[in-house]
């Protein structure tokens, strides 16, 4: 992850160290011939100038790097925020669902309720038809009863005729009975008429009910065909909606997965940008080291002797914080010094 940044440091640091080394070698060779006081000033001035220039270049590189990383980081943070909204991983986000899916799901549910309503209508109409058919049966019963009344009237009429004959045979003593027999005959005749009228009315009622039942059955059949056709249409629409909802949900899931993959990559990129902090610290140490080395070198120059090797080494490595710096100083190279993000915490 940090190969490139370390290569960058190496590019900046290596020539700098090389120049410093050349200056040291030149100084080492020239020092015995220098006049201790007067001759040291130009050397010291050149060295100071070189050190200031190198430090300024390092500072400039640090600033440019920091600004660039800041801009990249801000952009990534913004992208990550938008990805969070898309994949629904932040509070208040739309959970990544396509609103069309919710609308279609609502339509689906309402159409299914409509189908249930249709079935309810068919059941209700069948119940009404059954009631009307019951009325038809009642009408048939009434017609039978009217027939019974007519039959009883005819029998009563025959009985009254027989009674009148018997009264005539009885002569004067049967005269009163003949009057009664005549009344009975008249009543039976009227009963017969009433029975026929009832029969006629009941037959008319029965015909009307039969017609109504027939019409109701035909209407029911037509309704059933209409309802079945509607059910079929609604079922087709529901199936289409189901299919569309399924496709949209699948697409939304694929988009979410894709978003999560991109988000993971962005998070890894953001994590990798921590190299800037390490580079900044390494360059900070380098600047401090250059200043210290320059000062130490100037002091040694003024005294007309090379800096002490051990103190010089300590001065160069003062302020190391990263193991890359120690690895570079030890000569194991920057590439082997790269390390992944820490996943361990030491608790005290």
């Amino acid at each position, binding site marked *: 992850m940090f190969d490139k940044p370390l290569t960058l440091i190496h590019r900046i640091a290596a020539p700098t160290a090389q120049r410093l080394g050349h200056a040291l070698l030149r100084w080492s060779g020239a020092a015995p011939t220098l006049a201790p006081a007067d001759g040291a000033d130009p050397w010291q001035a050149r060295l100071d100038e070189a050190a200031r220039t190198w430090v300024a270049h390092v500072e400039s590189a640090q600033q440019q790097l920091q600004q660039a990383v800041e801009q990249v980081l801000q952009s990534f943070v913004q992208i990550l925020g938008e990805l969070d909204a898309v994949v629904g991983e932040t509070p208040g986000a739309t959970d990544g669902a396509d609103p069309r899916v919710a609308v279609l799901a609502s339509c689906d549910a309402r159409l299914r309720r409509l189908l249930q309503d249709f079935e309810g209508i068919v059941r209700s109409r069948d119940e009404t038809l059954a009631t009307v058919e019951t009325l038809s049966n009642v009408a048939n019963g009434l017609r039978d009863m009217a027939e019974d009344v007519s039959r009883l009237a005819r029998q009563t009429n025959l009985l009254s005729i027989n009674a009148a004959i018997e009264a005539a045979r009885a002569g004067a003593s049967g005269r009163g009975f003949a009057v009664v027999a005549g009344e009975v005959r008249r009543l039976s005749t009227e009963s017969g008429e009433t029975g026929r009228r009832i029969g006629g009315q009941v037959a008319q009622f029965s015909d009307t009910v039969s017609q109504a039942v027939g019409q109701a059955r035909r209407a029911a059949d037509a309704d059933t065909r209409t309802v079945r056709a509607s059910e079929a249409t609604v079922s087709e629409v529901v199936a289409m909606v189901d299919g569309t909802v399924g496709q949209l949900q699948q697409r939304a899931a694929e988009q979410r997965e894709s978003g999560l993959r991109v988000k993971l990559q962005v998070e890894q990129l953001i*994590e990798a940008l*921590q190299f800037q*902090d390490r580079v900044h610290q390494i360059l900070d140490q380098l600047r401090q080291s250059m200043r210290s080395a320059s000062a130490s070198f100037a002091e040694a120059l003024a005294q007309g002797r090379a800096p002490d090797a051990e103190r010089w080494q300590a001065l160069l490595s003062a302020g190391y914080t990263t193991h890359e710096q120690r690895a570079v100083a030890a000569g194991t190279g920057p590439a082997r010094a790269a390390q992944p993000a*820490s996943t*361990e915490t030491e*608790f*005290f």
Partner: protein
Amino acid sequence: MAKTILIVDDSSSLRTLVRMALTRAGYEVLEAGDGLEALQALDRAARVHLVVCDVNMPRLDGIGFVTQLKQHPRHRFVPVVMLTTEDQGSTRERGRQAGAKAWMVKPFNPPQLLDTVSKLVLA
């Protein structure tokens, strides 16, 4: 109510990274660029539940900040997680003696940072 975490680091990009990790996990964040700024931020803050602090910073470094924090009248019990490029045992020991509760080496892994914070953040 969201818990407040103070991030102390002289690198603004690092502060951004830590802030992003913490705010996405629901924490509120305060920021300071060095130890002195951090002490001033603590003086102003009503309540801070944890501090995430770098070691190498200008003016007042992380170890110095923790030392002073442990004498602060209101915030001396606030736990501190050191987040630094320093991986030397001797520096860790100085941090432990100053009063830090945990040590993480940069580059950090955001889930690991969140796990560490959740273990130490004040109730």
